[in-house]
């Protein structure tokens, strides 16, 4: 028993010392020359920003890039309050957000998705509005099977939701949803698992999943096929920029990072996330 106590004590002591060593490293990292970039905001942009950050770190050994997710508005708010150096937003700045600087690093679209087994191949604007406001509750009304529609909506605070509502001129309180999801992947999983569901997600995510055997298909919007290609050529109506936002004119390391994120060197990273790189 005594051995056990000693062992536990020893473990704790070893652990404590081990924890103190990194603390020294941290003091070292606070030396002049060591810089930390904090990015917060949109969960759509975050995976891309993290990848770019990783590559940026490899090129600049004295920089650490921390990426935290949240919503676009959260990112913008954090930049304002100085909590973050750079905000990430999966939408353009709003009018009341003037005074900030935004830099597009990629473009993404929002597409309507349904289950692959659903015979419906297209919905017009009014039909989508009616489905989301509960006026149409059965697929039969829009040419599908006689099954009740499962409406998938996004949770409050996501810019995908804001853009969707804005595009169709809806109030969120008017939407009669059956499922509410947080992030893109949850939406894709929900629609893939339910033959009668309809939802809207980032086109990049949807196309990737559709090509990897998820049981979903993208519907054209206003007659334009929802594809990365159409987002790239600007034909798709519900496209959005993925932005990095700063409080002041970027300088120093922030400037370097933003320039890097907009350069050709990260095009492969952008495409790996199924987004559209900016034109160079």
């Amino acid at each position, binding site marked *: 028993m005594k051995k056990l106590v000693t062992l536990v004590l020893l473990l704790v002591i070893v652990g404590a010392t081990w924890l103190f060593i990194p603390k020294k490293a941290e003091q070292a990292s606070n030396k002049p020359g060591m810089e930390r970039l904090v990015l917060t905001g949109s969960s759509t942009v975050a995976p891309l920003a993290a990848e770019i950050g990783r590559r940026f770190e490899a090129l600049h050994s004295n920089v650490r890039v921390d990426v935290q997710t949240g919503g676009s508005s959260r990112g913008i708010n954090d930049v304002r309050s100085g909590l973050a150096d750079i905000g990430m937003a999966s939408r353009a700045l709003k009018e009341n957000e003037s005074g900030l600087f935004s830099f597009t690093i990629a473009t993404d679209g929002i597409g309507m998705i349904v289950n692959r087994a659903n015979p419906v191949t297209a919905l017009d604007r009014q039909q989508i509005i009616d489905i989301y406001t509960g006026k149409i509750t059965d697929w039969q009304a829009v040419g599908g099977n006689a099954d009740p529609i499962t409406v998938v909506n996004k949770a*409050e605070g*996501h810019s995908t939701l804001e853009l969707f509502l804005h595009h169709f001129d809806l109030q969120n309180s008017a939407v009669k949803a059956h499922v509410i999801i947080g992030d893109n992947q949850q939406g894709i999983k929900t629609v893939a698992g339910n033959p009668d569901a309809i939802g809207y997600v980032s086109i990049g995510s949807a196309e990737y999943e559709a090509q990897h055997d998820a049981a979903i298909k993208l519907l054209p919007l206003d007659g334009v096929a929802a594809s990365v290609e159409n987002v790239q050529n600007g034909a798709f109506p519900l496209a959005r920029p993925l932005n990095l936002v700063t409080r002041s004119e970027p300088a120093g390391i922030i400037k370097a990072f933003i320039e890097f994120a907009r350069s050709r060197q990260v095009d492969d990273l952008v495409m790996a996330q199924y987004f559209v790189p900016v034109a160079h």
Partner: protein
Amino acid sequence: MIWSWHNILSLSRTDSILAALLRLCALLSAAIVILILLFLISESWPVLQHVPLSRFISDASWHPAQGLYNIAPMLGATLLSSLGAVLLATPLGIASALFCHYYAPTALAIWHRRTIALLAGIPSVVYGFWGLTTLAPLIGRLHPPGVSLLTGIVVLTMMILPTVALTVDAALAGVPAAYLRGAAALGLTRWSMINGVVLPAARSGIASGIMLAAVRAIGETMAILMVAGNVVQYPDSLFASVRTLTANIALEMAYAMGDHRAALFVTGLALLAMVLLLVGFAEFFKQDAAHV
């Protein structure tokens, strides 16, 4: 335990120093819960200042972006899902514990108990993952959308079942062997012995186990977030999607600012109040039982 505080003077000097130190630590431990309450209130204060509490149950809906803050449907969903899970898990858990004690051969009982203990150790995110990828499509085939109150209840049941089983197991272990010998001597069948002697004797242990499981069900977040659908509404059937208080916080917290964020802290307060009520009720019940 046996030490009495009544004569502090009988402590030696080192002991007094030690006691003071320990009291400090204990005070710190006890202060955490107060600190939590304090911070929840202070963080929800901004919205409570201009939105009266009554609006949190009387508003038309939960649309914090439009200044609507009704959390009553989420209260209802939390209650319903927990209640359903407790109702399902209680008989299963008790049966499992009875199995270990009175039905299974010793070796099998040991393995069964180990299995349950391991089930208890599976993290909630794994249950949620399983529910999302396996269970929800299954239920969706029955009745869309699949992510629903029912799915939530089933996953919650899986999660609290080990809690019920293990606490009831411990309670059964505490039933004096003399009772069993007495019952056996009367020639009772195994079930009459269990029903007539064992379960009543272990009553308070079983009750506290169920209470513990209920608290866990109410507080469960990740799994229910992944499988319950998260629509803020009063469910009209088991297949309707619902959002619990916990899911509301986890879903929107990362995206919330200002009043929205404060309203989520109010949600947290409501959740805490609910759990405290339950714990208080359990305490009251325990004291009541002690007087009988």
